[in-house]
């Protein structure tokens, strides 16, 4: 029972971070129909940058975090401006492979600057375990879940009430109409990329403050795809609901299946879920089924 409770808390917390990263994907997909396969590398890069700020440059927290946010926004702007903007209206194959090229490039930069490839961020949250009944839960996971919830709340408010958020939703709905209303669509595209990098950075910092920075962060980013696939490509609510589901499946499966299968079964569960969803319900739980016309 205690073990179950522990796995539940961890699963939900990790799943919320996946959902956060997945939101960045959904925003870019909705506004510009670009599939961003560089998510994992964005997570890796911004975690290492945080490491550089906090550990190598020894900046205090209040200075380091704004710098990380500025860095993430700048990264998003650069990617959109120099790689994606020249490719507007190109076939989807080019749009997917260009993000793969970006992924490769970022991975090169990361090995270039931080060649030792494994390190730990300083602990951001208190580590004393919480005792709930007879279960022992690491306090960090509770903090991560709370911060993710807070970020979800802020994002929802942004998309609902802020002028730019409303413009982004409108672009997702109908690009032509938005352009006719005088909203600069290209600026919306670059906003959505900046947004994607920002949530990838937040998700990366949250995950790596617990598990350290490893190359596995790329897989964390890729696991966010299973959230996107399960929730539906163009659904915010889908991502937020599917995130904890994936996290739970991963942790419960890892906890209870390992004795029967090989060790490390945890890492493969999200990918198996992708295949299963593809075979049964390819557009996900809340995704919009596109009807194609010739």
């Amino acid at each position, binding site marked *: 029972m205690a073990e179950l409770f522990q796995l539940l808390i961890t699963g939900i917390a990790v799943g919320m971070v996946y959902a956060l990263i997945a939101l960045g994907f959904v925003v870019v997909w909705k506004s510009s129909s670009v599939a961003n396969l560089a998510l994992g590398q964005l997570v890796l890069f911004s975690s290492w940058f945080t490491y550089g700020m906090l550990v190598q440059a020894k900046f205090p927290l209040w200075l380091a975090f704004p710098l990380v946010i500025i860095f993430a926004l700048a990264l998003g702007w650069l990617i959109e401006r120099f790689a994606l903007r020249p490719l507007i209206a190109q076939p989807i194959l080019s749009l997917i492979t*260009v993000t793969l090229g970006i992924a*490769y490039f970022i991975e090169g930069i990361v090995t270039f600057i931080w060649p030792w490839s494994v390190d730990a961020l300083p602990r951001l949250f208190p580590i004393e375990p919480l005792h709930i009944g007879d279960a022992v839960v690491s306090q960090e996971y509770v903090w991560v879940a709370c911060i993710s919830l807070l970020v979800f709340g802020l994002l929802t408010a942004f998309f609902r009430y802020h002028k730019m958020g409303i413009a982004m939703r409108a672009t997702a709905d109908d690009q032509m109409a938005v352009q006719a209303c005088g909203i600069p669509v290209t600026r919306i595209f670059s906003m959505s990329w900046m947004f994607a990098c920002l949530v990838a950075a937040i998700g990366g910092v949250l995950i790596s403050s617990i598990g350290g920075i490893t190359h596995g962060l790329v897989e964390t980013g890729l696991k966010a795809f*299973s959230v996107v696939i399960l929730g539906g490509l163009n659904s915010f609510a889908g991502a937020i609901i599917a995130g904890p589901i994936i996290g739970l499946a991963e942790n419960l499966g890892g906890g209870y299946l390992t004795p029967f299968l090989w060790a490390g079964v945890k890492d493969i569960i999200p990918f198996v879920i992708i295949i299963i969803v593809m075979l049964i319900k390819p557009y996900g739980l809340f995704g919009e089924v596109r009807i194609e016309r010739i």
Partner: protein
Amino acid sequence: MSLPSGTRNYTYAQDMAILRTRTHWVLFFGFLVLLFTAPLYLGNYWLGVANLIGITLIAATGLNILTGYCGQLSIGHAGFIAVGAYTSAILTNRLELPFLVGLICAGLTAGFIGLIFGIPSVRVKGFYLAITTIAAQFIIIWVINHWSALTGGFVGIKVPYASIGSFVFKSEASQFYLIITITALCIFFAKNLARTKVGRAFIAVRDNDLAAQVMGINLFYYKLLAFFIGCFMAGIAGSLLAHWIGFMNAEQFSLTESILYIGMIIIGGLGTTLGPILGVVFIRLLQQILTVEFVPFLERTITALPSGFATGVTPMLFGLVIVLFLVLEPRGLAHRWALLKSAYRLWPFSY
């Protein structure tokens, strides 16, 4: 098809011929002679590079049939190559079957695994398919790493040299002949496949699969056929790779390798036979020159380089090359070559 002025086709056979003029034939045989006498004038080092290029070329040709002709994006190609490599390694090492059996079985196994992961392609495309193939890559590598009773797991598995009858392909030169012959056969097959009914069906599916279906093309059959052929070639390449290196470890088949394969056919030019050749030669030579000549040279001359320079600069440059090609020349080197040829034909009257 534009022909040089004065060259006309009088029969259908002439019209269908791959090599049309006498100059074509002379150049073709000249090239073949040059290729098959390569061990005479190339050292062991460059023969090794040529072997790697040949093996990569087989896999890239398969990927080109799948992605370039049929339009089904696969980002798990290294995974399918791994299936072929491990099938061959297990059959020849553990069961001590002859090399040719291993080679054929490697192709078939990779093809069938490709079919399984290709089934979603019937309902989805584009990004969904890309994600499915990434998942395939991770699942395949995970199984290889953990099914250690069969595959040797993280430790890896030793592979004997390739052999036909009592002849063992031990030296670099003999392996070169084996690899280059199979490569040439694969390219010849790919070139002709594109001109048959199947190839035309693939192109129709790529351009608009719905329209193709309306015209009576069986999507299920042709998409899965493309997956089978593409992954079959990946399996063949994997088998040759295993026997060439002599030792297999799942680290050789990472996701970045898959991305590199996509990069190669993009740089070369999708949906042409020439494209993969140009792309593979370009990328593999760039890789060799960077890692063997250029980076050590820089490290010798500039001592203040950061320690990650050697490992970081290659992926950085490859990523940059892929992005730049997509932005500046999305139709690849093959298109440049075609432009050059037509300019040469019309020269000096370039209108």
